[in-house]
Structure formats: C-alpha cells, structure tokens
C-alpha cells in the first residue's frame, strides 16, 4: 500500500469542506476497491463504501455476504488483498503512525473471536484500558461506570468464561467503549442476546451516537436495523448493493426487509418447499428413521 494516509485525509476533508464538525467533515469510513479472497472463494469483491461520521450505520446482508470479512479488514484484523481503507481520514493499512491513529480512534466488538475469558469482567476492562495506555485510575473509574450502566456490576467478579452470550456482548461492548473511540464497529452485536440485554446495549449505543460518534454495526435482522439506523449499506455476495440514508435505500418498498429481499434477489425462493412433501402433516411418523428409533 502506498503511504498516502495524510493525503487521503486531506482528500476526504476537501470533499465535504465547510460542514459542521461531527456532521461528516471527514467520512468515518471510506473504502475504495476492497478485495479479499480465501482460496477459490472471493469473500469481498470490490467494495466501495463511504460511511458518514456521526451516524448510526447498519451493514446488512445475508449470511456469507462478506460483512464480517469487510469489518475485519476495516478494523485492521484481516489484511486485504487489494484496496484502500480510511477510518477518520487515516489509512488503516499504511505506515505505523497512521495505523496508530486508526487504532486509537476505533473500538471493536468482533463476532466469533474470544475475549480473555479467564479474567473477571472487571479485570478484563482493567486490562484492556491499560493496554490502550489510559491511566489506571481513569480506567477503573470508567470501568465501574460502564459495568453499572450495562447492568454487569453484579457479575463483575465472575470470570467471563461463565458469562452468558448477552453478558459477553455487553462486556465486549464495555471494552470497546472504554477508550472513548470516535468510531465503533460492532459485528452482530445483538446476535443471541436476550431482549433485556439488547435494550441495554441499544440505550448505550444511542447515547453514544447522540454525542457525535459513529456506530457501524452488521446485522441480518432488518427490523432492528430499520428501527436503529439512519444510514444503511446492503451487502450481498461480496459486493455493496446499495448504500445511503435509510429512507433512500428503502425507497418505495413497504419495509427494509422487502427492499432488502429485492436487492439481494431472494424473492420467489419461498416456493422451493414443494419437494419437502414428507415434512409434517398427517403422514408424519410413518416410516421415518425416528420410528425405528422408537421401536428399539
């Protein structure tokens, strides 16, 4: 990658010069021509994306669309094969200084990666804050408040390995917020989370974006994205199918769900169930392998 981090920053600024701070002076994320392939499989197939700052942004797409791969490359966890990524105007894959600028400005909650689970929730926050170079006293103060707000205070001394899925997402979110990042990347933050924890997470995220920060989260739950986000990018088969303000992407469709199915071309697949004629109905239980098991 050419070392053009700072040129990139100025380019980004000149695009939207004169706008109010926090209102997209520099896009939170700018992705140009992003490619990634694993063996024969092209996971991300030339993605171009501009995500404005200060918005609640949803990256939606079916399973296997390349959302996690894209987010991993944007957050510096996976090396792209090709393309350029700027976060808050700094190149994610350029020289160390630029990378440091990016890493200090972002928080991440990845999906499918572990935490240091043999630490207690409180220890995990203490560790992660100090790793980021925050002063110890400040880390402990912020950790206590985050644990309180996220309703984890009662379990702060339990090891993370004993946490439920919802609690893990919440402690991960706390660790991602601890250093007050400008842009927060969340991969499926509501996956497997109960409604109470989901509401807590939602409340924290809404408060966070109202202060001018950016949240980028991936999801395949359209209702959730529709109710939370003011900006969406739709991804399918490694490409961006649409991006823009929620109303624009939804267009004339009755819901984001309908618009999404239209965009990814998944309408009309429902009729494929004809071949499952043995499934359910009065004939059930006759001659299936389950019966032979019951007879034994």
């Amino acid at each position, binding site marked *: 990658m050419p070392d053009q981090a700072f040129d990139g920053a100025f380019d980004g600024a000149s695009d939207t010069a004169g706008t109010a701070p926090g209102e997209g002076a520099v896009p939170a994320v700018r992705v140009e021509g992003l490619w990634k392939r694993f063996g024969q499989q092209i996971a991300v197939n030339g993605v171009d994306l501009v995500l404005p700052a200060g918005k609640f942004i949803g990256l939606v797409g079916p399973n296997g669309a390349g959302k996690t791969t894209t987010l991993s490359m944007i957050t510096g966890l996976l090396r792209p094969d090709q393309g350029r990524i700027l976060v808050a105007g700094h190149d994610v894959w350029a020289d160390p200084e630029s990378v440091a600028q990016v890493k200090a400005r972002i928080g991440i909650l990845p999906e499918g990666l572990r935490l240091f689970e043999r630490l207690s929730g409180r220890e995990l926050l*203490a560790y992660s804050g100090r790793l980021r170079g925050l002063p110890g006293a400040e880390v402990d103060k912020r950790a206590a408040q985050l644990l309180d707000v996220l309703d984890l205070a009662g379990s702060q001394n339990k090891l993370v390995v004993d946490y439920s899925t919802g609690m893990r997402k919440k402690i991960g979110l706390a660790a991602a917020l601890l250093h007050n990042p400008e842009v927060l990347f969340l991969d499926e933050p509501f996956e497997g989370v109960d409604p109470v924890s989901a509401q807590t997470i939602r409340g924290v995220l809404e408060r966070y974006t109202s202060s001018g920060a950016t949240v980028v989260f991936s999801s395949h739950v359209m209702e959730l994205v529709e109710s939370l986000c003011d900006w969406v990018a739709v991804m399918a088969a490694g490409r961006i199918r649409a991006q823009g303000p929620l109303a624009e992407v939804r267009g004339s469709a009755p819901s984001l769900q309908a618009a999404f199915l239209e965009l990814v071309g998944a309408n009309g697949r429902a009729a494929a169930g004809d071949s499952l004629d043995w499934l359910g109905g009065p004939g059930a239980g006759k001659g299936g392998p389950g019966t032979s098991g019951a007879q034994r």
Partner: protein
Amino acid sequence: MSATATTAASPVPSLTSVFVRLKLSLLKNGLRQSGGRTAAYLASIVFGTFLAVVAVLGFVLLRGHADAVTVAVLLTGVLSLSWTVMPLFIPSGDETLDPSRLVMLPLQPRPLVRALLVASLVGVGPVLTSVVVLGASVAVAHGAAGTVVAVLAVPLAAVTCVALSRSVAAANVRLLTSRKGRDLALLSGLVIAVGMQLVNFGAQRLGRAGGLEALEPATAVVGWLPPAAAIGAVDSAGRGDYAVAAARLLLTAAALVGLLYWWQRSLVRLMVEPDGSTIGAAADAGADEKSGTGRLARMLPGGRTGAVMERSLRYIWRDPKTKAAWVTSLAVGLIVPLFNAFQGTGSIYFACFASGMLGIQMYNQFGQDTSAFWMVAQTISTTADAYAELRARALALLSVTLPYTTVVTALTAGVLGDWSAFPEALGLAFGLLGAMMATGAVTSAVFPYSIPQDSGYKNVAPGQGGLAWMSIMGGMILGGLLCSPLIAATVYLHVSDRQSLLWLLLPAGALYGGLLVLAGLKLAAPRTAARLPEILAAVSKG
C-alpha cells in the same frame, strides 16, 4: 438394526463402521488440506515402519536366546507405558474421539465405546504396535501351545494398549474440566513429571546394568502387568506352565474390560457434566477484587507492562491448560536434577533442566491467547508497542523462572554437596533460560499456532501439529547452539585447569542470557508488529 419402509434400500450402518469411516475421512481431508501435513504423515509412516521392521528383525534374531523373554516382556511394558503417557504429552487432533462433539447424538455408552475403540485402532500407531507385539511373541512363542496363546495374546495386548491410552486421555480431560480441575491440573503435571523420571531411571538402569540378567526381577513384575502379561503368557505356555499362562491371559483380558469400563464412565461424565473448572477461580477473583485491581497489580509496574504481566500470571493460575503446562515444567525441572542428585547419578548441570523446561513457556505466546489475541492486536501499531508487549510477557515469565532456577540449582548443589560448582551451573542455567526465551519470542512471532480451547483432547489444531513441533524442536536446538559459547567457556576453564575463574561464569551467564533475551525481543518485535493479521489468523484456528 430394524430397516423400515423408507430406509429399506440402504440398511442402517453399524455405529462402529460409521466411526471408522468418519476417522478415515477426517484423516483424508486433513491430509488434503495441507501438503506439509501429508509429508509429515508419510514421514511418520516411513519412520514407524523402519522402527517396527528393526524391532521385528531383532525379535526374530533373539528367538531362542536366554534373554528373549526379558526383552520381549520389558519392551511390551515400555510400549504400553508410552501409550499411557502419550495422550498427556503428544498433541493429537483426533476429533472422532472427542466426546464433546458427540453429546447431541442419541448414542448408548456401550456401543459408543466399542465404536470409538475400533476407530482408535485405525491408524499408524496401533498397526505398528501390533507389529512390534507380534515380534515380541515370535521371540518367545515355542511349541503349539505357545503359538495358540500368541494368537490370542497379540491382539489382546495391542487392543489393551489403545484402550489404556484412550481411557487415560478421557480421565485426564475429565480431570481438567472437573470442578476441582484447576487444582487437579497440578496432579496431572506431577504424574507426567514423575513418569518421565521413571523412564529416565529405567533407561539409566539399562545403560549401567551391562547384562540383561540385572533386569530379570523387573521382568518378573512386568510379566504380570497387563498388557505385557499377555506376552508373559505366551512364554509360560511355551514352557508348559498352562495355569500361569491362562492366569496371565485372563489378567490382561480383565484389565482390558476394566479399562473399557473406566473409559465409558469418564465418557458419560464428560458428556453430561459442564466444564466446572472456573467455579473456584471466580471466588478467587472475587476475593482479590475490591478496587478493580488486586494485590498482584500493586506489586507490578503500571501501564501496559503491568497489565500484561498481571494477565499472564493470572492465566498461569486460572487456565487449566496453561496451569498443567507450567506445573509439568516446574515439576520436571525440579524432579530430574534433584532425584538424580539423590541417587548419586546426578550432576549439578542437570539443574539446567529447570531453566530449559521453563523457557519453553515463552514459546507460542500468542497461541496461548487464542483468538482473544485480537484485543492485543488492536493495541499494537508500532514496533515499540510490540516490543513492550513481548517484554512484559518475558518479564512475567522471568518473575517466576529466575527465582525458581536459582532455587533448583541451589538445592541440587546442596544435595550433591558441590557448592563450588554452584556459580558456573547457575550461570549456564541463566544462559540457557535467556536462549530459550529469545528463541521463544522469535518463534512466537514467526510460527504462531493455535491451541484449541473447546477440547481438552487437543493442544494443536488439526494440521498445525507439524508447525508446533518444528517451532519447539527447532527453537530448542537453536537455544542449545546459542548457549555453546558458555558451554565452551565452561569446558575450557575446566580443561585448562583454571577452576579459580569458574565463578566468572555466573555473571557472564546472567549477562549473556539477558543480552539474548533483549536480542530475541528486538528481533521478534518488528515481526510481530508487521504480522498481526497473520498471527491472529494462525491462532484463531480450531
């Protein structure tokens, strides 16, 4: 199996054949995944076949010799001992044998154990074991009775070896995941350490005994221990002691049944009980935590260094796998030099065992993090960050290993009464520790591999075993080479009769070790910083 209307065309296959086919497909797919793995697998087949051929040839030549029984019985004993300890040491990626993957299937324990046993007989190891046991019985089988008993004894002994290995593995996993798992990990480590020392003694005995007659008392005992008792039975039958032969065969069969029962019980427990190894730890954490950081933190430096050291040290205590590895290293490092010293066969230089074993803990630092390494990767952007991270990990290790090495060397010197050699031995130990940590830091950055957490059966993800062994063995050899200046200096001072200068090796060794650690960290840091995504990918597998 009752074939019903819809399944009549293809009868339900037996569980055993399903497992055998599963094992074969896993093997095939694993080999297809990587060329390196195929090469390693073929190399192990060639090497194993070579060993087996040599063993069988040796046994055939031994036939009729007076010591044939001694060799045959003892070798079978050693073989079964290695089958017993193997699952504790050797990383194996055998997923067919991992009960946690079978939990959701409607399987009865008894057919399951039968199927698993047959599946575990498929492989290079069991086949070679059978060949060697066959050779052993050829050496001792005489007459028709001997031959008949041998026909029974060979498969019995081979199956018992495999059952031994599997039941020990299952019991070990159960131990590590039990409520007291963290504490029992200590035991597991100690057993390994003591077992190693027993093997060491045996080898020394053999080396010193000169004649095999000295081993006859051992043969008398081992000849009654299954599965070597089966080979003993062949010999007894050949001599006409039919009662003894029958007793030995029955004993082996009984042992096999007992082992299978034990295995089955462990399997059932493993499948229905959750991992309870964290219950105690949670209480520890609670007791320790009042202000966000515990007593430990107050003794450590601030910032990244302190945070990383604290986490590393906590993990030694709280993570069963890490704990077992540490306890093994600590115990072997203590037992080998001390026991040898007590026996009078020791040398103070054996104290280097302690520093060598502990130095291994620096290897695969990021693999020990598992995919949680992303949290570390997120905070590293420059070489300086990577250096601080690695240095803190090295410091955490040194905070245990430096005092421990000193104590072990002092104890060994005390037992041997050889205090004059204490400084040089300690200097050498420090040098070796530094060399191991330096190579460990570099290999951590260059050859990371993942340690799967979901299963106590595996220490390496399938396909990364070769990488793991290569990095550890290569690192140890390089570590030894790096120490050669110190060793050369020691030898030179001894040979040139300048004993009065030997104390200089202590400061020299400490300095040299320290410089090696610094150099290792300096070499590893830029590689770590530049390879963060690659390291994360490598340690997230499995």
